[in-house]
């Protein structure tokens, strides 16, 4: 493979993002600071019974998030259970209870883990009226929580963080919906389908038959990527030619995944009144992204392992139109943004290449992470970084004029501990409880040996971090995985949100302290370097042992 192809592809992406992140970031900042409601929004607030001027404490904001998410789970669950009587269900029966629970939780938590194969499980109505609706609003919830945390920094001496319903509405109607409409049309132009045709049988040249699937795919594909959701309309997700027909739609889809997460740091900088602060966060995210992309691409091009060596390259599970470079760029983007879409099968990557997709999720989905969740995750790490730097020089740490006292540091630390605990406990239980281990090894694991362990680790890492991608050989539609991964997704989404909003409340209550000669500057390359270092040290210390048991051991055999 010629190096210039890799460079040209990456440069195109970088230029597009460099051009759009400022206007999009500024637009989002305006969206969340404007005092004026649109006419359609006023109508919505009247129908649902919301006072848009009503400011909420962090507790009230959190209750809104939790109530809305719980109702969302019930809606998606009910639609799946009622599938047999819904129109456009392609004759499919009701989705079983355990799978309905897992899927409802999965889409409400912005994970989009799929224990099912859509073609044979989900009719069009469940897909568009259940799953795609959550693709919008779960992304809206993520953005809302990030905005609440930004207000914690930008406001002073106040008990309130804004109004959850207003933030959710503006994120959905002013940002996600217009972008989704435009993107859908672009995708159709590239060959993504949008119809209600069902499956069509045709006679082939050889006298046999072939099946051409149908479906309202483009409308779902656009928001699946924009909202960093990732749940495919088809089983093989963005590897399916009707979801991702060409190399240019592939790059377009990558841009969609990165557009909002890479623009939110600008929104943050704008809202706290110092765009340099946002740029420093963006620089740390971009650094991690580039290093990870380079590593994965290198491992796949080298193509080590018995199978790839024998075949002459790591093309198992990859589409001919994408090849290696367009597959690894998509895989890195998807796993490091919490999207979880795939255009190639991660289970078939080389051992160390597969490890990179796992590692991206283990970073905690912050480089740039999911819509909203990536920014609040990175700001938590920034708080930890300021704290560590403060310890080194013996000063009380402060970030953006807010003192980081014991309460703030405790909340940030609890945030950091949550997902690793979920991931490691879930993986350990899968092997430690004899009955479950038998089921996991007998039914769920697809590839034998070390690779099978990695499949289980990948599943819990994906669920705990709300990514949703899979080492897809695993059979997850079992009582254990449907339940355990469902619980992992719920805890991995909402416990961190509790800590973030509590932190936002305690920051908003403070007055701002003036910048002095002893204040650590948090907009310089030095801080960016510290931030990246803290991310890597935290992740390495947490996950090295478990990586050594799986992909590292397999790759170094």
């Amino acid at each position, binding site marked *: 493979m010629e190096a210039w192809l890799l460079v040209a*592809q990456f440069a195109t992406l970088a230029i597009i993002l460099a051009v759009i992140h400022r206007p999009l970031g500024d637009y989002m900042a305006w969206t969340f600071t404007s005092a004026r409601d649109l006419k359609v929004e006023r109508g*919505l607030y009247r*129908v*649902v*019974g919301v006072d848009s001027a009503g400011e909420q404490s962090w507790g009230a904001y959190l209750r809104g998030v939790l109530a*809305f998410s719980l*109702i*969302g789970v019930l*809606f998606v669950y009910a639609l799946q259970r009622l599938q047999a009587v819904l129109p456009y269900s392609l004759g499919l029966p009701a989705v079983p209870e355990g799978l309905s629970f897992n899927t409802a939780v999965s889409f409400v938590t912005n994970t989009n883990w799929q224990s099912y*194969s859509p*073609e044979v499980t989900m009719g069009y109505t469940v897909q*568009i009226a259940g799953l*795609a*609706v959550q693709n919008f609003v779960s992304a809206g919830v993520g953005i809302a929580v990030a905005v609440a945390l930004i207000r914690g920094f930008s406001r002073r001496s106040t008990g309130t963080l804004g109004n959850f*319903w207003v933030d*959710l509405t503006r994120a*959905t109607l002013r940002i996600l919906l217009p972008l*989704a409409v435009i993107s*859908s049309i672009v995708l*159709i*132009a*590239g060959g993504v*389908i*949008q*119809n209600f*045709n069902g499956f*069509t049988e*045709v006679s*082939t*040249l050889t006298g*046999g038959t*072939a*099946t*051409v*699937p149908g479906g*309202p795919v*483009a409308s779902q594909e656009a928001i699946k990527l924009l909202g960093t959701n990732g749940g495919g309309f*088809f*089983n093989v997700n963005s590897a399916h*030619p*009707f979801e991702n*027909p*060409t*190399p240019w739609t592939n*790059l377009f889809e990558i841009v969609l995944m990165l557009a909002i997460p890479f623009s939110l740091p600008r929104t943050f900088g704008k809202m706290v009144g110092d765009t340099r602060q946002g740029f420093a966060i963006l620089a740390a995210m971009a650094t991690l992204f580039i290093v990870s992309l380079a590593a994965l691409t290198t491992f796949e091009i080298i193509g080590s*392992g018995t*199978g790839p060596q*024998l*075949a*002459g390259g790591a*093309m198992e*599970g*990859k*589409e*001919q*139109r994408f090849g290696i470079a367009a597959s690894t760029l998509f895989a890195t983007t998807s796993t490091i943004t919490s999207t979880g879409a795939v255009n190639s099968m991660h289970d*078939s*990557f080389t051992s160390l290449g597969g490890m990179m997709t796992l590692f991206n999720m283990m970073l905690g989905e912050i480089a740039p992470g999911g819509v909203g969740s990536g920014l609040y995750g990175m700001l938590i790490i920034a708080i930890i970084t300021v704290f560590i730097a403060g310890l080194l020089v013996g000063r009380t740490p402060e970030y953006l004029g807010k003192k980081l006292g014991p309460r703030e540091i405790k909340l940030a630390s609890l945030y950091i501990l949550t997902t690793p605990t979920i991931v490691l406990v879930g993986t350990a239980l899968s092997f430690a409880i004899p009955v479950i281990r038998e089921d996991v090894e007998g039914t769920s694991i697809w*590839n034998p040996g070390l690779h099978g362990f990695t499949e289980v680790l990948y599943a819990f890492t994906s669920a705990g971090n709300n990514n949703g991608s899979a080492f897809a050989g695993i059979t997850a539609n079992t009582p254990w995985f449907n339940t355990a991964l469902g619980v992992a997704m719920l805890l991995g989404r909402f416990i961190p949100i509790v800590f973030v909003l509590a932190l936002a409340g305690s920051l908003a209550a403070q007055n701002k302290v003036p910048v002095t000669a002893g204040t650590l500057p948090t907009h310089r390359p030095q801080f960016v370097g510290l931030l990246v270092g803290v991310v890597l040290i935290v992740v390495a210390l947490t996950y090295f042992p478990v990586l050594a048991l799986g992909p590292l051991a*397999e790759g170094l055999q």
Partner: protein
Amino acid sequence: MATNRGFARPYWVAIRYMIVATVVLGIAYPVAILGIGQLALPAQANGSVVTVDGETVGSSLIGQSFTDEDGNALPEWFQSRPSAAGYDGGASVGSNYGPENADFIAEIEARQAAIAESDGVAVGDIPVDALTTSGSGLDPHISPEYAYEQVARIADERGVDVAEVTGLVDAFVQGRDLGYLGEPTVNVLQLNVALAQLGS
């Protein structure tokens, strides 16, 4: 009951909100996109179908197998890549074989032996896409190398000139998008449609 009402309030808002969201985002939005797609871009929106003499023979985006009923390759047609889905458009799936999986290695060896025999080429000259399954199981493309590698067999089976078949492949090689995105491809169904017309 006042405190109960306060506790329950966000749930009532959430229920009404979800109803509105379902109507707007779950029905109006996809139907609007459906309308735009069907009016402005009907060929793409309906699956980029390929027709021969007015009969639909497939989609240019959904790969097909060119085999007999038992799944044996028909040597007079250009063959698609191996597929874990058997090119069933109703059940897309990849093999998900890890790099060290013994079944995976055995399948590669079997494909090498089969292609070496049918196409009369050395194992080392077989392109990688001919030996590996795609992610979707519905890959509509093969590499230009694999298409050219099959030319001699097809010319022989059909009793036509090698140069004629080579010229056909030349015409169907699609370069990278914009010259640098993705990989060069040959669309197998479109190539075979043209191949069928070669003799007629």
